[in-house]
C-alpha cells in the first residue's frame, strides 16, 4: 500500500467522513488548534528566547524552562490531537499539498532538535550555566533552530489552506 493509497483509505473512514460532512466540526477543531498553538508554540517561543539569552535573562534558565515545559506539552498534546483530526478530514488533499509536506518536515526537525539538545552535555549540566550572562553556543543554537522550525511550521500550516 502506498502512502497515497493509505490517505485514500483514511478518507473513507467514518471519522473522516463525519468531520467533512459536519459544518461545525472543522471550524471548531481548527479554532481549538489555533488556541493550542498560542499556548504551546507561544510558550515554546519564550523558552527558546531564554535559551538564547534574550528574555528573563536574570532568571535561572532551568527554572524558566522547567516551569514552562508542562504547559507547552499540554498545548502540544491538544495541537496534535486536533491536527490529526483536521488531517483525517481531508488526507488526500493534504497528501498533494506542498505546504503540508513542509509542515511535517519542519515538525520533525523541531522534534529532532529537542531530542538532540536534551542529549547534550550543555542541557544535562544546565545548572553550571543557568545564571550565566551568555548561554553556551549549543543552547543558543537549539533555541534558534526551534524558533525557526516552529515559525516555518506555522507558515506552512497557514498556507496549507491556500491553492497557489
Amino acid at each position, binding site marked *: 500500500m502506498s502512502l497515497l493509497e493509505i490517505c485514500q483509505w483514511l478518507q473513507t473512514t467514518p471519522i473522516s467522513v463525519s468531520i467533512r460532512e459536519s459544518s461545525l466540526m472543522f471550524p471548531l477543531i481548527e479554532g481549538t488548534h489555533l488556541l493550542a498553538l498560542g*499556548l504551546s508554540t*507561544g510558550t515554546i517561543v*519564550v523558552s527558546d528566547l531564554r535559551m538564547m539569552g534574550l528574555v528573563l535573562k536574570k*532568571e535561572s534558565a532551568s527554572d*524558566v524552562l522547567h516551569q514552562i515545559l508542562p504547559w507547552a506539552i499540554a498545548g502540544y498534546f491538544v495541537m496534535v490531537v486536533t491536527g490529526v483530526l483536521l488531517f483525517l478530514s481531508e488526507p488526500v488533499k493534504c497528501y498533494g499539498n506542498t505546504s503540508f509536506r513542509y509542515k511535517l518536515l519542519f515538525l520533525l526537525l523541531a522534534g529532532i532538535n529537542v531530542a538532540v539538545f536534551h542529549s547534550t552535555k550543555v542541557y544535562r549540566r544546565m545548572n553550571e550555566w543557568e545564571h550565566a550572562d551568555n548561554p553556551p553556543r549549543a543552547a543558543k543554537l537549539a533555541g534558534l533552530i526551534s524558533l525557526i522550525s516552529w515559525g516555518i511550521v506555522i507558515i506552512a500550516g497557514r498556507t496549507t489552506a491556500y491553492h497557489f
Partner: protein
Amino acid sequence: MWHLLKPFFQWSETLWVGHFVAGNTWAFPVIETTHILALTVMFGAMILIDLRLVGLGMRKESVSLLTRNLEPYMNWGLIVMLVTGFMLFSSEAMKCYVNDGFRLKMELLVPAVLFQFTCFRWVTRQDEARRPRVLGWAASVLSTVLWMGVGVCGRAIGFV
C-alpha cells in the same frame, strides 16, 4: 451602533493598502501568516502572565518581574497584529461589515485592548503581597477569555 460605522468600512475599502492586498495574489497569505506568527508571540507571553496571576506556570518569578520581561513581546505582538489585521480588513472591508464572525471579533477586540492597557496593566503592577487575590484571578480570567474569544472569532470569519 454597527450601522453607524458603515462609512468607516466604506472608507477603508478605498485605501491604497486595501487595493494592494486585494490585487496581489501573495499579499493576503503573507500578511495573514504574519498575523498568526504575531499571535503566537503575543499569546505565549500573555498566557504565561495570566497563568502566573492565578498561581500557575512560572511561580518562582513574581507577577511584576514576569510582566516587565514579557510585556514588550505581548505589546509588540499586538501592534503587529493590529497593523496586519487592518491591512487584511481593508482589502475586504464591506465583506467584513456583513460577517457575523468579524462583528463579534470587533465586539471582543475593543474591550480586550482597552482592558489590556488599563485594568490588566494596573493589576500586574501591584504589590503582590497586598493585592487581593480575587483581583489577580479576575484579570487573568478576563484577559484569557476575551483574547481567546478574539482568536476564535477571527478564525470563524472564514467560515460563517
